[in-house]
């Protein structure tokens, strides 16, 4: 089964990425290690980090017209900052992996099963 890990954290508290090369690499190290672990275990199906919500644009339909607005869909205390897509045998296994995610240091991880769909045709 596939699961999506949705990584939430308070991006204001996390602050900007450090400009200094060494500090940047130190910040990235646990993420690199975690991603490697997922790949080596054969469960990694994909994942990305997102730019902060200050770069978000929300599209809605009001009446017939598309309306473009600045900002995320909802202002929340914690923001979606990235995701992983993993292949696990069970929710228990997925939760074990989620617990190891570096996002758990300061934030939280929402684990959602991918909805099974029949292949077309």
């Amino acid at each position, binding site marked *: 089964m596939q699961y999506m890990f949705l990584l939430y954290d308070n991006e204001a508290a996390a602050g900007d990425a450090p400009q*200094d*090369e060494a500090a940047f690499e130190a910040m990235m190290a646990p993420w690199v290690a975690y991603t490697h672990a997922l790949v080596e275990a054969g469960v990694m199906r994909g994942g990305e980090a997102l730019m902060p919500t*200050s*770069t978000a*644009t929300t599209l809605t339909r009001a009446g017939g017209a598309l309306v473009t*607005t*600045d*900002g995320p869909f909802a202002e929340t205390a914690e923001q979606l900052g990235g995701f992983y897509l993993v292949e696990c045998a069970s929710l228990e296994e997925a939760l074990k992996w989620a617990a190891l995610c570096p996002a758990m240091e300061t934030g939280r991880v929402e684990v959602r099963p991918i909805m099974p769909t029949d292949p077309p045709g």
Partner: protein
Amino acid sequence: MDLNRAIDGLHRAHHRALVAPLIRILGGFEAAEDVVQDTFAKALEVWGREGLPEVPLAWLRRTARNGAIDRYRRQGRWRQKAAQIAAEAPAQVMARALDDAFEDAHLADDALRLIFTCCHPALAPEAQIGLTLRTVCGLTSEQVARAFLVQRTTLQQRLVRAQRKIDQAGIRYEVPGPEQLEPRLAAVLHTVYLVFTEGYAATDGDTLLRVDLCDEAIRLARLVSGLLPERAEVQGLLALMLLHHARRAARVDDAGELVLLADQDRGRWDRALIAEALPLVEAGLRGRPTATYAIEAAIAALHARAPSAADTDWMQIAALYAVLERQTGGNPVVRLNAAVAVAMAGGLDAGLARLEALAGEPALATSHRLPAARAELLRRAGRLTDARAAFREALARVNNPVEARHLARRLAALGGHAAEEREK
């Protein structure tokens, strides 16, 4: 002090021409703006010591160009993109690219690209306004902050956030293609009009210190009109703003009190602005579909042409409002104005009935405009008790003190007081 003023003047005259080429070459809005701000900061420092250079623009361009090259060199290697470009473009190549980018031949295209980028709908409306005023109009952050009565630091944070969003979300520095031009131009014109209405509403405050936002909006519309002369909606908006602006001296009396259109001294209307606007109204109306701004301008033109309030062609105004009503899909504010026009064209009862029908509109629920309009029509109909009640309702809702005093005077003229009426 004089140097500060000279630098503000140069900022205003040349900011656009400095920042636009840098956006193209540096590939980033924030980086370009930083280089320009640093350039002006350096001008203040150096010119304070050595006096103004002979050709300030040449000095500013040279300094901005060198600043851009320095910035490239300083950018950390881990920033892959910068490193890539730095590898491909040694300083000399970049200097040549910058010199070419600073050629005057690019000015018009750059202005248009800048306006569309600053007014991108993915930016918050107040950020669009602030960015446009600083980047396109060349106002300093200080001037923009003062015009909107916000702290300079608040404004600067807002602009920095918007600049970052442009860079990070991938908003392209370009004029939209034909299929996107219409909605994007609508967004630009909306922003320009917001600048104008902000200036129009600001009747208080010290005009010596505050930049006149109406003037800025008109200047912007003239710029866009010059760059896109074939777009009827631009001519319509420019005409509309000119016609409103022409009335500015008559809108407020010597005591600072609001004067209704009907009571204005038409001798104080700016005839030169009206003369400039009337052909633009015609041009605006030629577009298909007819632009909303052009219809509004045509209505304003009928007022401007009327020798007195009594001679106003209300029949034609009511007809234009009917078109506007259809076009805006029954926008409540348009319906309100249409109802008043119908009443003034002789259908007092029909106009009042239309206003009653607007009573449940959420968009008007907290505004004083509906009861104020009802009050005026009830007064005309001779239903004075109802008129007084409607004026009181309007007074309870109004926020702007100038408009509140106006409503209180209207109420007093009907023998009423702001307090609850005792009579039946």
